[in-house]
């Protein structure tokens, strides 16, 4: 469930959480389908982002992210606790791409 900046909203997207402005006032309920008019209205209010239903896949390819992970962990390979953390993070990252 990604949070999207008002500038990137498109008609047809559905809100996953209520839309609130920066002072906490609720402008739209959850599960609302966005129309061009609603998007205009959101853009004119002080809203920093809108939670949208559905998962957006991360933009960087998974192989690259895992390679980065290997690089970050290169000094601590073979240390039991760090191996556990490394494994959990890799499983978590793979989960983001499912």
């Amino acid at each position, binding site marked *: 469930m990604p*949070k999207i900046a008002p500038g990137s909203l498109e008609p047809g997207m559905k809100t996953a959480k209520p839309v609130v402005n920066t002072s906490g006032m609720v402008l739209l309920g959850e599960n609302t389908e966005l129309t061009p008019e609603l998007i205009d209205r959101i853009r004119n209010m002080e809203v920093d982002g809108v939670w949208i239903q559905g998962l957006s896949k991360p933009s960087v390819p998974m192989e690259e992210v895992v390679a980065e992970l290997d690089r970050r962990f290169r000094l601590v390979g073979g240390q039991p606790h760090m191996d556990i953390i490394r494994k959990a*993070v890799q499983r978590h990252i793979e989960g983001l791409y499912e």
Partner: protein
Amino acid sequence: MNSMDVRAVREKIEHINALPTIPKVLNRLLALIENPRVSLNEISNFISSDPALTTKVLRMVNSPVYGFPGRISSVNQAVILLGLTVVKGLLLGVSVFELMQKTMIGLWEHSIGTALFSRIIAVRAGHKEPDEVSVDGLLHDIGKVFLVLQFPSEYQRALTQTKEDGIIIHEAEKNHFSTTHASVGSWMARKWRFPAKLIDVIEYHHKPHLTKSTAVESAIVHIADILVRARGFGFPGDDLMTPVQPEAWDLLKLTERDILEILEEAEDSLQATEDLTL
């Protein structure tokens, strides 16, 4: 390479408020929170008298890092719900935000990520004050900001050394300053009369097994720091993992399952904090 004398470093760091780059509002804030008897009302009035600061504080308390997403609409309400200790810490956090953004790209993201993970781990560990632990996480690296501000070219050399020699920033700092951001942060936290626990966590977040008074909090921030690095969120000065202290790990009784659940719980909020610019 010549390492600086630690007393000379401390002398300069402790006069950081004389730097022209320190925003006026930060100096006024520090004068206020240095007073141990400052009241909730005074803090509240101080924030409310500055519209820019008010917006920043409200954004922060309504962010997923704290437990009231989108529900706090006034400074008074924030101060009452979160309490004096948390609000003082938050205020300092949002006030150094711009300095962080200017001095070290990614340090703000690292700090806010650590705040978020600290809170999640604290809640899971049954800690009574998860929001306070979250502030510990938010401010744990504040010493880096002071070092960069006071010694910009030397710190740049330390950063370069992490890349060239493949060492962590903590080690590079020792090589250049004979001390680390953890000590520097704690000197200032003590000078500004921060809560004793916060001072201790800042000092011990890399060696949580050595603290006598904040074993749990230091362990939480230590692990949160490592998880944010492991997740690849933000930039704390290097991109290398350092070992977790076994004592901290055992104290929190963590398993692979726990780590996975903590990462999952943090994920949505991490994505939301990515555009949390104040």
